[in-house]
């Protein structure tokens, strides 16, 4: 008991970290193309850095990635640390974590942010262990305290029932993986100037224990985070076959198909389509929920959509209460009719850009 109190007292003291300075953002890339979350996080990093008066740096690892350093500057980095090495051609935990940990030990940032993507989570967990510091997972809100430059990384817990704020008081850097699609991409300024700092990896190919054999791109396009319209299906669909109906509707709208956890767990549609707490957070212009009752885990992943349309037979479904437009009826009749209607409207010269002009601009896709 006494020890626990002592531990809590220790935890309340923020030591001096004068030698740690600046906010870093990890630029996630594959084949020289950056993941959008890398730029989204530069925006929020820039805001926090301005509040406390420190520089923002990006870290770029890869092979032939000089163009990404330039992009990072244009999106708001003051400095870019670049490790360009053939060993980093493909993402591999060991090599990337080694590179990032080395940069952190040499240059001592006070904060490092990563996307909470598969790659971001993979590398951040390893880096946190190498440098022995705290790592908050999947933050959806970030803020900074003037006093001690303490990062408040807040995240949904237990399927979004609770939000919790994670602090890392006694270790630097403070690290967090952050959800993609939550923070807006800052404006890009091609004239912006920044400093590019080349760094060495210090690891040979024969020291790396893994080897990427092949990357097989997903054939069916599932880019939920950048979709303007999402057509999502849930348990109410009753089986995998009914998703064809949603793909048809999605095609007539240039939309992307999403799914609830129940539908994914039932094996009706791959995980890549899952929206919600354990899937992706989305904020499209229009979200159409078909046969999704609206478990809280799902709602937290889509409730910031500009317009929500819900079709369900159960008038008491929480999704219908959240929706802007609630249709109580049989989706197995309504959806095919809707697809036909939309195809007819398109043929008659209606807008190709459905919903575009009538709705507000979405900062994420802007």
């Amino acid at each position, binding site marked *: 008991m006494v020890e626990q109190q002592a531990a809590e007292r220790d935890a309340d003291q923020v030591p001096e970290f004068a030698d740690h300075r600046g906010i870093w953002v990890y630029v996630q890339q594959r084949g020289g193309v950056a993941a959008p979350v890398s730029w989204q996080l530069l925006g929020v990093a820039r805001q926090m850095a301005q509040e406390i008066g420190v520089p923002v740096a990006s870290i770029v690892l890869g092979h032939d990635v000089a163009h990404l350093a330039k992009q990072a500057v244009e999106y708001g980095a003051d400095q870019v640390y670049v490790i360009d090495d053939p060993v980093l051609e493909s993402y591999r935990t060991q090599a990337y974590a080694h590179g990032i940990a080395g940069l952190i030990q040499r240059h001592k940032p006070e904060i490092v942010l990563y996307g909470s993507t598969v790659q971001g989570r993979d590398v951040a967990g390893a880096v946190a262990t190498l440098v022995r*510091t705290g790592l908050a997972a999947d933050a959806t809100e970030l803020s900074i305290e003037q006093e001690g430059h303490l990062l408040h990384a807040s995240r949904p817990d237990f399927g979004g029932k609770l939000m919790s704020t994670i602090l890392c008081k006694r270790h630097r850097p403070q690290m967090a993986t952050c959800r993609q699609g939550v923070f807006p991409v800052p404006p890009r300024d091609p004239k912006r100037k920044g400093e590019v700092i080349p760094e060495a990896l210090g690891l040979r190919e024969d020291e790396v224990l*893994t080897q990427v054999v092949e990357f097989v791109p997903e054939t069916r396009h599932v880019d939920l985070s950048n979709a303007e319209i999402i057509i999502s299906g849930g348990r109410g669909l009753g089986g995998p076959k009914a998703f064809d109906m949603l793909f048809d509707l999605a095609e007539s709208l240039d939309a992307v198909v999403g799914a609830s956890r129940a539908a994914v767990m039932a094996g009706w549609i791959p995980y890549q389509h899952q929206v919600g707490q354990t899937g992706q957070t989305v904020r499209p212009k229009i979200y159409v929920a078909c046969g999704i009752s609206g478990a809280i885990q799902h709602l937290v992943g889509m409730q910031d959509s500009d317009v929500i349309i819900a079709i369900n037979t159960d008038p008491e479904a929480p999704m219908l209460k959240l929706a802007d437009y*609630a249709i109580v*009826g049989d989706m197995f009749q309504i959806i095919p009719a809707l697809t036909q209607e939309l195809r007819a409207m398109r043929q008659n*010269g209606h807008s190709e850009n459905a919903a575009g*002009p009538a709705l507000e601009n979405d900062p994420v896709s802007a």
Partner: protein
Amino acid sequence: MHAVVSIKQVPDTAEVRIDPRTNTMIRTGVPSIVNPDDRHAIEEAVRLKEKFGGRVTVVTMGPPQAREALREAISYGADDAILCSDRRFAGADTLATSYALWKAVLKIAEIEPIDLVLCGRQALDGDTGQVPPGLATRLGWPQLTSVLKLDEVDFAGRSIQVHRAVEGGVEIVKSKLPCVITCTREINVLRYATFPNMVRAARYQPSLWDKTDLGIDDESQIGLRGSPTIVSKVWAPLRRQRGTTQVIDGSDPQEAARSLARILMGEPAEEAPVVAERGTDG
């Protein structure tokens, strides 16, 4: 073949309670289950045992009640189960948890060398996915996260090839053994516990290892003290206030479809059906 599966017992329900003093979750009294992703890790290990022979050891860190999760793992076909439990482990974040599990894996390896450690991709409660990378990094073993499929397993040649679910596709990676693998739910289809395994599980007593058994002298690495992160605040999220819901009668599917089509094309639902001037700039 010796596979170690690191599992976590998680609260089953939406019944989340928080200790207002420590801002940590109260797990006592809440019904618990084996974390769903971890069940797939156990299943995969048992399948490897069926194919190659060998043993499956399951390990967890948690309070005494986590024994139940280990018994469940035995019922799915694991051979041995170890509970790492000590009052001083309490309050551990992912860094402190991976430290204790690392010590446990080292001790298990002393008993019998390990070919691979399997974990679930993420836990239902914390949802961090950080413990397996922590464990792999401490062991100095490769980590293969978010694995969809074990493609080629070659225990004699000390290598494994897996399919990983990554952004935009599937990555096929070859790794040296031993390594740490985190399993997605796509990796296999769960099977029911067999009757003999259920009987065995009911009588099974997991080994109990405390911090002394794990050879942990340095308490600054474990529990609350070994945890760089703290939860400072827990609150119920505010829902964004949305406007009122407009209910559309779906009893006539054609009419409902027409109303919806107008909304989707950016035209207010109430307006007349033919409003061609809006949105024709596209």
